[in-house]
């Protein structure tokens, strides 16, 4: 080996060190004393955009329509927060993330929030420096199989090959399920959603497993061929899909959380995108506080007093978001309904 070659090696180590550490260099601006109290919000106002991490590949959650407009529950969640924080739903800027880079995207400040069908777990909240503001879909892990396989339940799938995305809570849930039932399976782990779906459809795997919601919408998106695919009745895990923000910016966390509360209260009170203006003369104190007609709810959060009005005007109440995005996929609302209709979505009082 020549001396020159040895130097190359050393510079390679150095280059790697530089690359590895640059991640740490992306520090967002510190909170300004004269700002809203939220560094994330201040940066978003200055930028004129709220950066929102989505998957961009899952029908019903986030997928661009034929006009290039992002549609889905996750996309509308981004719009709702943009409307609350910046007064304009159109200021939500969508950033496509994968299952593997989503957390680093949020940690490094590449996005302001993550609305990407991400399961709320203890270890994620404990280790990642991130926290969950709300659950926008109560889900569970399911299995999609081909009708021709003749499988009726998850317990029939001993020895099966299962397509699953790496880095998800799904892969851990399947492992647990097979371990508990003392069965064996072969995982096929592909990161890209269209690639893994193609692998399943081509027969590389016997089953495709992810959140039951995504399986239902994927099955629906197959059109006439949907009848060849069967969603097994078993739901093998709890997957509360939540909206994440960085730790250390509590004001921003508050804005995201109370955006959801506002949409739930609106649904409770029957306030919709279409009729919200007729409520501006309401005498119901709850409604008056919600719409910023009295009290200082917006000020407490550091946003516009009429933030909830902007949200409802932009995306409607929680039920409307569901009806617009998930109902067409043929998924019943079930536990995702608001509490007064037997579901889990319950908002603390806005007072």
């Amino acid at each position, binding site marked *: 080996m020549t001396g020159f070659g040895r130097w190359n090696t050393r510079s390679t180590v150095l280059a790697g060190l530089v690359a590895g550490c640059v*991640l740490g260099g992306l*520090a967002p601006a510190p909170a300004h004393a004269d700002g809203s109290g939220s560094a994330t919000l201040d940066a978003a106002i200055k930028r004129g955009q709220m950066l929102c991490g989505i998957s961009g590949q899952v029908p019903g959650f986030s997928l661009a329509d034929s006009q290039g407009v992002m549609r889905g529950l996750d996309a509308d969640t981004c719009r709702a927060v943009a409307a609350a924080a910046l007064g304009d739903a159109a200021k939500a800027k969508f950033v496509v993330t994968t299952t593997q880079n989503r957390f680093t995207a949020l940690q490094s400040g590449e996005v302001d929030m993550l609305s990407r069908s991400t399961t709320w777990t203890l270890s994620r909240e404990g280790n990642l*420096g991130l926290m969950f503001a709300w659950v926008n879909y109560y889900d569970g892990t399911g299995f999609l199989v081909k009708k021709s396989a003749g499988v009726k339940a998850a317990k029939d799938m001993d020895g099966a090959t299962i397509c699953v995305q790496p880095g998800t809570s799904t892969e851990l849930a399947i492992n647990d399920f097979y371990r508990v039932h003392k069965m064996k399976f072969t995982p096929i782990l592909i990161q890209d959603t269209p690639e893994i779906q193609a692998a399943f459809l081509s*027969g*590389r795997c*016997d089953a495709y497993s992810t959140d039951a919601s995504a399986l239902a919408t994927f099955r629906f998106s197959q059109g006439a061929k949907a009848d060849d695919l069967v969603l097994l009745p078993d739901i093998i895990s709890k997957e509360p899909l939540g909206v994440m923000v960085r730790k250390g910016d509590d004001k921003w966390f508050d804005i995201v959380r109370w955006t959801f509360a506002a949409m739930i209260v609106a649904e409770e009170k029957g306030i919709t995108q279409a009729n919200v203006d007729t409520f501006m003369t309401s005498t119901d104190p709850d409604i008056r506080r919600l719409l910023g007609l009295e009290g200082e709810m917006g000020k407490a959060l550091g946003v516009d007093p009429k933030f909830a009005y902007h949200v409802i005007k932009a995306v409607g109440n929680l039920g409307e978001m569901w009806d617009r995005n998930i109902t067409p996929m043929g998924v019943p609302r079930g536990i995702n309904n608001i509490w007064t209709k037997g579901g889990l979505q319950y908002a603390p009082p806005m007072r």
Partner: protein
Amino acid sequence: MPVTSADPRTMGARHAPKRRMRLAWSDPLFRSLVWQVVILGIVSAIGWYLVSNTNKNLAARHIATGFGFLDRVAGIPIGESLISYEPASDTYGRALWIGVLNTLKVAGIGIVLATILGTLIGIGRLSSNWLMAQLTGFYVEVIRDIPLLLQLLFWYTALQGLPAPKLSWRIGDAVFLSNRGIKVPYVVWENAHTWALVAFLIGVVGTFLWNRRARAKQEATGVRPAVWPAALGLLLALPLAVWAVLGAPTDVELPVLRGFNFQGGGTVSPEYFALLLGLVLYTAGYIAEIVRSGIQAVALGQWEAAGALGLRRGAILRHIVLPQALRVVIPPMTSQYLNLTKNSSLAVAIGYQDVVSIANTTLNQTGQAVEGIAVIMAVFLTISLSISLFMNWYNARIALVGR
């Protein structure tokens, strides 16, 4: 031909006489020392800044740090592994080690196959057969112009287009080709096989020694004793005899279709096969060009001189041209081997679980991104440096030595 294999400038054979250094700017020794101290200082300052900045930011973001996660139970599923793996009890450390072995499995076999294929194609390009020269030239141009990732996705999709297990293409009852991979019979391994393998290795050493003796004899007397009968006996007859003496076990496990998939037998998964195929075909295109240029770098006079001695074309290539071409070929070949190894990380796209894939999953499940990337870098650095060291050693060995 001028003797150029070792550049005298890099050999460090001649030194100026030693003398004391003066503490003056006019002394080149002193100057170089100052510059080295300054550069070292700048480099370590940058390194210190980057490391401390990373730590500060990780702490500010409340992100857990450290390599403690390597001892935690992984719980992540792994599709194929050379060593046993039980997600319920094995650690992230073992999962990553499986990834390293999977990377080595595809890189090691890939390098061997790409070298063989690339050399054949490179020689083919120089063929006097018009069709052969054009076909191989076409191959090189096409394969080098298509991005590797696209080629991998192409092969993976093509392999998925194979029939389902129940309708698989078959060769007898032994080999099955389906969209679940290639299933082959698996020899049930017994002691006899292990000892036969040992006998074979002894045979390799024996053949090598025999060959050396033969060469010594040739140099002394000019007559070369035949090597092949000894080689045949040592490499084939000896292992067979050992195997036969130990009972000649012939149990073979055949793949059988049961339930969802084949049970028993050995498997080449579509993910591995697509990755290997893509890497080998792609890298062979580059190796072919290196081999072609290496052969053409040997002066035409060498061919003519050998021809004048009455050697045939094949013999000229084997004994005269290729040994000289090798000296030109080895350094660029090293970079191709490194490229192939690093390109194997594209496995992520087609679901083969190499070290990058498993480290990605690990950093995603644990949130330890900096540590995960550090593991990936350390693994590739180690593999690449090992390849470099070996190739540089080999390069030095075959360098022309003045006699």
